[in-house]
């Protein structure tokens, strides 16, 4: 097989899908991830493909073990998501999804920053459609906000790339050293990685997306950003503390959140925190850990979003205050959700156990005990909100009286595939470890690790049980940093739109009045001066002359004089020619 970018099957699919008959579209959707997977298997690390474009050599394909690891999980997750969304008969959403996934794969295999930003921008636009397509007023507003934030982020990134390539003379996307351009690029990446305070687009948009759309979005946008950070910013100290802060920040909001997909959204921020912290540590084991955690996270977070989406599909509700007692009516969804929940919480035999512990181990090895301790706290928080609070108030407690409608069978199959993947990685971590960027010297299944994990999780359950009364959900939303562009919107509108537009209006009016005055002055200066108020001081001698001024009385003499002048200068001109 020739060395083609793994983005190609997805992008070709996005072009092809609308022309296929409606009946086969969902099945065809599944073909493209498979093709991409086969393409990935054929690619050798070290391969690079250049494409001349506008006098630049664009590296559209650069393969190494880091990009391959992300490529594999992208192909896997898009297949699972395609199965989950098999019942969907909406070509527009399917095309947007393929475009979005394809561009994510494009970013991961882009060897230069120009290729990267092109894919980066298309990702933002195509994913915003997955929110828009929900068709409610709230989702419409959320999609517009999402798009505006990502366009702003893309502009910062583009600015950074221009400054960076101007100062270094190279567009190659490799490790980036601190500089103005480097910092701008970091901010651009950090917006997509949802690093607070640049994160509020995520919990704003993902609960508003379509059921299948949010499953895809939870996997791709933040993880391409994690890849980009790992590629460019490994070892930047600021990321260690940004990551730890993220991990804890997400926990607080997830504990307060009422919407089940909102809880999972804040949980993404918390989990990305582990990856960002590991990237900040920057050692080989830390980059391995960030990659492994991204890989595992895509699968279990996809599963959790599928579970929450199934509840929304079946009941029409996504707020904990409206849900409850569904365990009798949706037991299978509960079981599959709990596989994702124990995986994200890091229970032994599930994927989180073999990836999250690697991040903490990397922090311990790098002599950063506080990072390790705070990440332990965040992992307890994860178990608390995603593993206990969400399922307890959705499937447990008293019956809400909701009558869920049956789910399409493909939704169960999609969740089953994701659950299987989470379990297989947990049981046979070698399958994942062999695909990491560097050789792995880490053994998760040791007695102390198993015992300490079980103590942490079980005693956290005791804490949950003791303070259960406090955790009851309330019908509220929590202020976040989107306050600045949502609550301040009227003020921003006033400063940014109303004031300038009134100002422009006033200037326009003034200049029109000025022009009108000039016309009237030119047509009849004496009458014009007489209309001015006395204090203007122009009346002087004119004031005594009360006779009506007739412009025609001056036309003949002025006209004759002007004609004479024109004739004189014409004669002068002709004479000079001769």
């Amino acid at each position: 097989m020739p060395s083609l970018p793994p983005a190609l099957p997805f992008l070709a699919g996005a072009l092809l899908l609308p022309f296929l008959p409606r009946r086969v579209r969902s099945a065809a959707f599944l073909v493209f991830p498979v093709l991409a997977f086969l393409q990935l298997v054929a690619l050798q690390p070290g391969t690079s493909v250049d494409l001349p474009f506008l006098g630049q050599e664009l590296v559209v394909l650069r393969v190494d073990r880091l990009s391959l690891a992300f490529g594999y999980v992208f192909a896997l997750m898009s297949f699972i998501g395609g199965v989950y969304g098999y019942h969907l008969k909406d070509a527009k959403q399917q095309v947007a999804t393929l475009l979005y996934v394809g561009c994510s794969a494009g970013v991961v295999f882009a060897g230069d920053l120009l290729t990267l930003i092109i894919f980066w921008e298309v990702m933002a636009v195509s994913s915003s459609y997955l929110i828009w397509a929900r068709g409610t007023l709230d989702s419409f507003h959320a999609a517009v906000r999402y798009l505006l934030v990502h366009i702003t982020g893309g502009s910062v990134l583009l600015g950074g790339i221009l400054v960076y390539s101007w100062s270094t003379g190279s567009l190659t996307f490799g490790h980036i050293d601190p500089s103005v351009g480097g910092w701008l690029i970091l901010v651009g990446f950090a917006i997509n990685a949802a690093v607070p305070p640049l994160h509020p687009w995520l919990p704003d948009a993902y609960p508003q997306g379509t059921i299948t759309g949010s499953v895809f979005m939870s996997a791709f946008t933040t993880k391409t950003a994690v890849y980009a950070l790992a590629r460019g910013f490994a070892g930047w100290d600021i990321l260690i503390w940004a990551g730890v802060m993220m991990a804890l920040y997400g926990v607080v909001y997830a504990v307060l959140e009422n919407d089940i997909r909102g809880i999972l959204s804040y949980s993404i921020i918390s989990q990305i925190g582990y990856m960002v912290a590991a990237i900040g540590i920057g050692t080989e084991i830390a980059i391995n850990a960030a990659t492994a955690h991204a890989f595992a996270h895509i699968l279990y977070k996809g599963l959790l979003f599928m579970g929450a989406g199934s509840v929304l599909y079946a009941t029409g509700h996504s707020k904990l205050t409206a849900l409850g007692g569904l365990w009798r009516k949706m037991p299978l969804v509960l079981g599959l959700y709990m596989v994702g929940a124990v995986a994200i919480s890091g229970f032994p035999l599930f994927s989180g156990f073999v990836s999250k512990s690697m991040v903490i181990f990397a922090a311990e090895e790098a002599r950063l005990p506080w990072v390790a301790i705070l990440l332990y706290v965040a992992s307890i928080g994860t178990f608390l909100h995603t593993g206990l609070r969400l399922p307890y108030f959705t499937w447990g407690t008293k019956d809400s009286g909701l009558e869920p409608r049956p789910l399409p069978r493909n939704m169960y199959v999609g969740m089953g595939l994701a659950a299987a993947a989470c379990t297989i990685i947990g049981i046979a971590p070698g399958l994942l470890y062999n695909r990491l960027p560097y050789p792995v010297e880490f053994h998760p299944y040791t007695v102390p690790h198993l015992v300490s994990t079980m103590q942490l999780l079980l005693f956290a359950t005791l804490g949950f049980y003791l303070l259960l009364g406090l955790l009851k959900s309330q019908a509220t939303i929590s202020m976040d940093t989107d306050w600045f562009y949502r609550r301040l919107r009227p003020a921003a509108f006033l400063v940014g739109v109303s004031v300038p537009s009134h100002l422009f209006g006033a200037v326009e009016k003034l200049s029109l009045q000025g022009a009108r005055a000039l016309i009237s002055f030119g047509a009849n200066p004496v009458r014009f001066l007489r209309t001015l108020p006395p204090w203007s001081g122009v009346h002087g001698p004119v004031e005594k002359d009360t006779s009506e001024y007739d412009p025609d009385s001056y036309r003949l003499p002025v006209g004759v004089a002007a004609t004479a002048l024109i004739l004189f200068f014409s004669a002068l001109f002709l004479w000079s020619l001769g």
Partner: protein
Amino acid sequence: MLRSWKIALITGLIISVVAEFTLPMEHHGVQYWWMSVPAFFAAFGLVSCLLIIVTSKWLGRAWLQRSEDYYAQLRPPEDTGALPQDEDEEENNHA
């Protein structure tokens, strides 16, 4: 139902602590003081969980939590239902 869950949890709590004192606990990698404190992770798990709940709830009540229509309150009054079709914004139309 709830009773059997309680019994399972208590059994698990006991086993996890007892295991620490009966199984060989050989740590790999860098050693920190907390790794040798008996039942450290049990206490840490419980205290962290309680702290997370209390802190989050306190932050929520004192500061973060708002009514669900907190942002919707600011929408113009006519903007209440259907998706916007092709409506021009009146505010900035001075022509």
